[in-house]
């Protein structure tokens, strides 16, 4: 094309409206500098496509895969047809003879105004953002939120700060901002029925003032989200979703509600309510001094939910145990969040309180063997594989994913999530490192961390079922091909009887 200047020349002949002429026969014009870009996403020039064809990748499918033509953000909307015309010219055939690769939505071209428009990157911040900044938060992205990964303290390394935050929760008290969790209110006479259909567990029979773990599946029985479902009133539920899943889950619940036509209504209060977890052996004593709620074991037992005033702000308090200690998840309107946080912080400081970030929370929950949806599960993981059969009520007449679960249950799991401890004290694998058994891939590490509390490196791994039994020894292919030995162990790693979160007692 560089030598044939006639290509691309316009025609003076009028074209009748009914004439089929979808586009120019050959759209590439010779450029003096010799760089004729075809695909602006992938930086592909005409010569790249010519070379691909000469290498033998001369069908539309092969050309696309070899050159990555059309695989960028615009998905070929501006480059695909041009690339085919170039290939047709190289092969001296008509475009129609080449055939098309599979087109995916959107089928129409991307308007130039969108490509030329401004790019924006909006970040969500919790109402406590300024408090975190003042406390020395080191930020990390979590979906479109920014969250404190940990809090810097003068003289401490990152690892030391995280360890100290963990230790504060295990021995005294810690405070973490969990406002990024999705938060949904559900009202109406058929609210319990709705949850029974939408989630795998049973909720119509949940007592008022109590909470229950919620596991959400898709139609194929795959775990897509989880959270805690509380019942503040007979016709009122309040529940959380994962941080990353909040918008998707709410949209799906709205769709299901429209589909089923039940007498209930959903309200998304994710951004309108803040939440923090106040956890540790000293949490009850400190919180009791700030609230009109009776936090005594009899009146506010493990897994209970109560509404009352904390530091003068109306709050919903859930006694849950994600980090494995006596703890209270406190939900308040966003406008009152900074005040309540500060009051809790100041009341806790004499007791050794430390604010803790996402990294400490990940380790604390790992010590308890609690899974994180999307990290310890993937796009194929069902509750049987994740060890979450206990959260599924198969006796219900219907719930989303139930039919698939019946099939999956009869088939048996293809993999199982198991706890592991690394036998080499000096070395540790990373998340996503593969488990190798007799030369074949037999699983992968989904979570791993060094636990100072337990004095060893622990993790969760998705394993082939024969390897997932406690006591099995597995080999993990770590960086550089180094093989690390690990043993499968029962979870929780820490406080297996759950005594600390249930009654605040020492394990």
């Amino acid at each position, binding site marked *: 094309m560089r030598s044939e200047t006639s290509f691309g020349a316009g025609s003076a002949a009028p074209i009748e409206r009914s004439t089929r002429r979808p586009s120019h026969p050959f759209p590439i014009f010779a450029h003096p500098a010799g760089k004729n870009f075809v695909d602006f996403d992938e930086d592909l020039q005409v010569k790249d496509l010519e070379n691909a064809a000469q290498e033998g990748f001369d069908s539309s499918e092969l050309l696309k895969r070899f050159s990555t033509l059309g695989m960028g953000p615009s998905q070929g909307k501006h480059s695909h047809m041009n690339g085919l015309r170039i290939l047709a010219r190289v092969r001296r055939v008509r475009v129609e003879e080449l055939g098309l690769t599979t087109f995916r939505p959107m089928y129409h071209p991307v308007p130039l105004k969108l490509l030329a428009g401004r790019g*924006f990157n909006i970040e*969500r*911040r919790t109402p406590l953002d300024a408090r975190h900044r003042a406390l020395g938060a080191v930020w990390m992205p979590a979906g479109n939120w920014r969250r404190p990964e940990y809090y810097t303290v003068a003289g401490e390394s990152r690892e030391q700060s995280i360890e100290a935050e963990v230790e504060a929760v295990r021995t005294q008290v810690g405070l973490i901002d969990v406002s990024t969790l999705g938060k949904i*209110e559900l*009202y109406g006479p058929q609210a319990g029925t709705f949850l029974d259909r939408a989630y795998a567990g049973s909720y119509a029979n949940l007592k008022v003032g109590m909470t229950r773990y919620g596991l959400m599946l898709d139609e194929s029985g795959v775990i897509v989200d989880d959270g805690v479902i509380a019942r503040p009133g007979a016709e*009122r539920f309040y529940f959380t979703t994962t941080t990353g899943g909040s918008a998707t889950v709410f949209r799906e619940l709205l769709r299901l509600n429209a589909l089923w036509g039940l007498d209930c209504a959903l*309200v998304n209060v994710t*951004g*309108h*309510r803040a939440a923090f977890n106040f956890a540790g052996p000293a949490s009850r004593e400190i919180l009791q001094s700030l609230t009109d709620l009776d936090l005594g074991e009899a009146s506010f037992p493990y897994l209970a939910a109560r509404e009352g005033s904390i530091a003068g702000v109306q709050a919903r308090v859930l006694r849950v145990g994600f980090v494995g200690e006596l703890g209270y998840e406190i939900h308040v309107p966003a406008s009152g969040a900074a005040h309540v946080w500060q009051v809790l912080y100041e009341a806790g400081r004499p007791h050794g309180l430390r604010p803790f970030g996402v990294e400490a929370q990940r380790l604390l929950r790992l010590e308890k063997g609690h899974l994180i949806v999307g990290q310890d599960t993937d796009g194929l993981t069902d509750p049987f594989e994740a060890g979450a059969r206990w959260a599924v009520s198969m006796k219900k007449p219907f719930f989303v994913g139930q039919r698939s679960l019946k099939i999956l249950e009869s088939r048996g799991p293809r993999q199982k999530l198991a706890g592991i401890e690394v036998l080499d004290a000096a070395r540790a694998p990373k998340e996503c490192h593969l488990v190798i058994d007799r030369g074949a891939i037999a699983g992968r590490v989904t979570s791993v961390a060094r636990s100072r509390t337990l004095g060893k490196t622990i993790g969760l791994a998705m394993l082939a079922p024969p390897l997932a039994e406690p006591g099995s020894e597995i080999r993990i292919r770590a960086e550089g091909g180094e093989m690390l030995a690990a043993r499968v162990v029962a979870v929780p790693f820490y406080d297996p009887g759950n005594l600390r979160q249930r009654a605040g007692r020492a394990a």
Partner: protein
Amino acid sequence: MSALCLDVADTAARLGLKGPRAAEWLTAAGVAAPARANTWSCPPAGPALLVARLGASEFFLEAHDQGALASLAAALAAEPAGVYPVLREDFAFRLSGTGVHDVLAQVCNVDFAGLDLEAQPVIMTLMIGVAVLAVPDGRNDARQYRFWCDPTFGPSLSETLGALIVEYGGTITGESA
């Protein structure tokens, strides 16, 4: 016409409610609710009150007098049948002045200039990817727009929008120190 301005000052009180009997309940409480979805009304009597109907059965109320909504909020807390409270802790702001439609065209897919103000429309759309609620106000030659969005998007949205306003020669007012 006034200069282009982003005003983020906000002292208003807000209340949200939804449910199959929400419209009926509002009427019984003496609040004239808009008859059509996605429209707003401003009852002439009492403190300045905006009532927006967000759909068949959801309403959003804003009053500049903090006490104006107190009695309604108390009545709502009694859990009337078929009426459910919607917590509104929105981030609110106002856009006005010369060039406001040029700015809106950069951040939003709705043709605000083409809106019929007589119809008292409530717009629910995306602004820079953030779900916003918008109510146009003022005369056709001096329009201003009131916006509300999820408060966790507020800081980032106002920073982004503020940079654009400044680029267009406008000012930002109402920011806390």
